[in-house]
């Protein structure tokens, strides 16, 4: 059992931090940021190649870089960071030791090793099969092996997280139920188990196939099972970044959930229904029935979407309630106007919330409608959608929480504070542009994962509309803006971690936190935010709802205009 000497009490938050946990959070966060730096740069190269006027890379390099971009940011950056979030949400928030630290280090080593192996395979040039690696297209065996080893590492980390929950319960380091943020992390971890199991079920046979031990992989079955990993892994992101939203709202503004019951039930809906999303990728596939598509693509009547829509009210609602409690009560939006917009943790989090809902959420549901998918499948609308969820949603939220992680866990002061205040806006605006312009280009027929939309070398000439070219140009410009935001982020993080002044006992915390110790004492006297009035949030949610409904039916109208088919 850990002794008191293995813990320190954080003098800004009052949280008990276990030394080994701290090291593991640091290691995983560093690996995450390195992956983001590499993968993000590759993303810029992709966008500059797809900008017809620039057309940077030659075809072969383009497909290679695109494969690496997907692997490094979608898998490595996100999962390393999520492991850090899991350790934080268990060991730090529950004030307990980390279970099986050696195993946790093993998990880390496996993840790093697997990530490097996959990257080497891609770099060698025989694995430009895209992140999805649809058979019968075949990659180098090491590509699959790398992904498998990485996934095993992630799975081990998830079990360390579960073990830590048991430790906390066993050693009674907290009373009653786990905090909401931990509950969100548990949701993410449960989905992760399902995700990684799906990955194993399909990638291990595919690995054997690439070695010549298996003759054949059925393309349709591969796709159904692969997306059990591919899409569910994005649901891990959703659960994790929603948990991060709640955490930032709590740390920066002292926000409490409007209702523990509602917020937890929303997470529960994720656990129960999110895994059906494999169907989103099979809506225009042969051999899959409409009944299967409709049930699965709607997550069983949109119950998981319901979960997200609930968080879409309760997160800003809890912020509004906290702000109003502090006296920012004028009109509908004083609480929002006078929110700490110069605090990068808050601004990043709030932009993540808004853009995830408006851009990522709405486009996802519309594109995931059985029939509407016909006019969007595999166009660049698809990357437009998931850049809204994974970049403006997850990545921006993780960047935002990094501004708290550095002073609280790395115990270094943030350097270049002025720049840090601008960073979320630069990155957020750039990422928003990427999403919107790709979606726009997709509705005009621009294909995804495509080197040359002028079709210069093709046997027959094809003219996509000029607007499509304009959109791809604007996408390139947005990517430059996002890349600047990304580089600024990396510079601030690296500079602060390596050269930042140490946080001493009396150092003033920046970004500014809510008075957590006082709030924590106060929290002992009330539970959920009781009967708080949140008129501003109601207006925001109403605007969201109207946009959602309009956009949904507009796309049915577009669908109705194309050739009848059945």
């Amino acid at each position, binding site marked *: 059992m850990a002794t008191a000497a293995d813990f320190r009490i954080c003098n800004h938050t009052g949280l008990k931090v276990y030394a080994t946990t701290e090291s593991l959070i640091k290691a995983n966060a560093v690996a995450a940021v390195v992956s983001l730096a590499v993968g993000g740069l590759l993303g810029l190269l992709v966008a500059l190649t797809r900008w017809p006027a620039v057309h940077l890379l030659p075809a072969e390099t383009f497909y290679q870089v695109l494969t690496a971009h997907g692997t490094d940011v979608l898998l490595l950056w996100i999962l390393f960071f999520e492991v850090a979030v899991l350790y934080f949400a268990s060991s730090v928030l529950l004030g307990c030791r980390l279970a099986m630290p050696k195993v946790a280090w093993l998990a880390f080593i496996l993840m790093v090793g697997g990530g490097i192996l996959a990257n080497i395979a891609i770099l060698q040039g025989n694995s430009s099969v895209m992140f999805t690696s649809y058979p019968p297209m075949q990659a180098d065996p090491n590509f699959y092996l790398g992904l498998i080893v990485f996934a095993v590492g992630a799975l081990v980390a998830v079990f360390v997280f579960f073990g830590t929950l048991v430790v906390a319960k066993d050693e009674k380091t907290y009373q009653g139920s786990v905090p909401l943020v931990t509950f969100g992390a548990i949701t993410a971890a449960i989905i992760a188990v399902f995700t990684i199991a799906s990955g194993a079920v399909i990638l291990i046979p595919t690995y054997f196939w690439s070695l010549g031990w298996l003759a054949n992989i059925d393309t349709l079955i591969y796709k159904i099972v692969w997306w059990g990993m591919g899409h569910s892994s994005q649901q891990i992101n959703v659960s994790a970044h929603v948990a991060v939203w709640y955490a930032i709202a709590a740390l920066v503004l002292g926000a409490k959930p409007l209702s523990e019951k509602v917020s937890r039930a929303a997470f529960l809906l994720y656990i129960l229904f999110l895994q059906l999303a494999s169907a989103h990728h099979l809506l225009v596939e*042969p051999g899959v029935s409409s009944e299967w598509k409709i049930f699965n693509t709607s997550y069983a009547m949109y119950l998981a979407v319901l979960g997200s829509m609930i968080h879409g009210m309760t997160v800003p609602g809890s912020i509004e309630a906290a702000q109003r409690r502090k006296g920012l009560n004028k009109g509908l939006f004083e609480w929002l106007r006078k929110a700490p917009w110069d605090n990068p943790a808050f601004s990043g989090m709030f932009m993540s919330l808004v853009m995830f809902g408006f851009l990522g959420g709405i486009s996802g549901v519309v594109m995931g409608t059985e029939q509407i998918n016909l006019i969007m499948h595999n166009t660049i609308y698809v990357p437009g959608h998931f850049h809204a969820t994974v970049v403006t949603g997850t990545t921006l939220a993780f960047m935002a929480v990094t501004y708290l992680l550095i002073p609280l866990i790395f115990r270094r002061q943030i350097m270049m504070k002025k720049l840090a205040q601008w960073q979320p806006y630069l990155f957020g605006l750039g990422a928003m542009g990427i999403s919107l312009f790709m979606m726009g280009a997709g509705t005009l027929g621009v294909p995804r994962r495509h080197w040359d939309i002028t079709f210069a070398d093709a046997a027959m000439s094809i003219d996509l509309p000029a607007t499509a070219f304009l959109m791809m140009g604007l996408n390139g410009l947005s990517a430059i803006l996002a890349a600047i935001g990304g580089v600024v982020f990396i510079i601030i993080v690296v500079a602060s971690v390596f050269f930042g002044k140490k946080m001493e006992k009396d150092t003033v915390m920046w970004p500014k936190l809510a008075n957590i110790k006082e709030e924590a004492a106060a929290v002992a006297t009330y539970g959920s935010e009781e009967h708080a009035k949140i008129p501003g949030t109601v207006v925001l949610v109403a605007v969201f709802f109207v946009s959602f409904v309009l956009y949904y039916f507009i796309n049915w109208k577009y669908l109705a205009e194309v050739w009848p088919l059945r």
Partner: protein
Amino acid sequence: MAIFPPKARVWWNEPVQKTELIWIAVAFVWGLVMFFTMIFWHSVGEQNLSNETYKISPEAFSAKVDAMIEQYQVGEEGDTGIPVVRPPADSDVYMLARLWEWYPVLELEKGRKYRLHLASLDWQHGFSLQPENINLQVHPNYEMVLTVEPTTAGVFSVVCNEFCGIGHHQMVGRIRVVENQ
């Protein structure tokens, strides 16, 4: 706060405020509306993907395509050497996908229905009809059959929008839709 355990041990008994309840109800109903719209469209809408699919070997599918070309070829597409085929209206038409072309060029009559058969001879491909922007996934060993009715005359392009290797961006095809004569 969300980072601390809820104070009340029995937090699940706390009342939920009306605003939240209303939103949950609205969102739930909206979910049902979206769900039933998909089903509804199957009975009233004209754009629903067929559920007709057969297992087929690449050789067998290729033979069907060749038979159609043999019978109904009317010319070649420019100087590409690719046959242009004009099967009778309301009949079965075939288009195959392979590295890296859509084959052959089909000439269809506006306003008539065709049973379009799609399959790949090698890797997965993405049938993307432009500028209509109708997109279908094409697999090897699976023959998808759908009934399609071109409602506009003109020259339509088929591009590939599923990544299929280094020649992916050169993979194109064509469907010509002509007025009834």
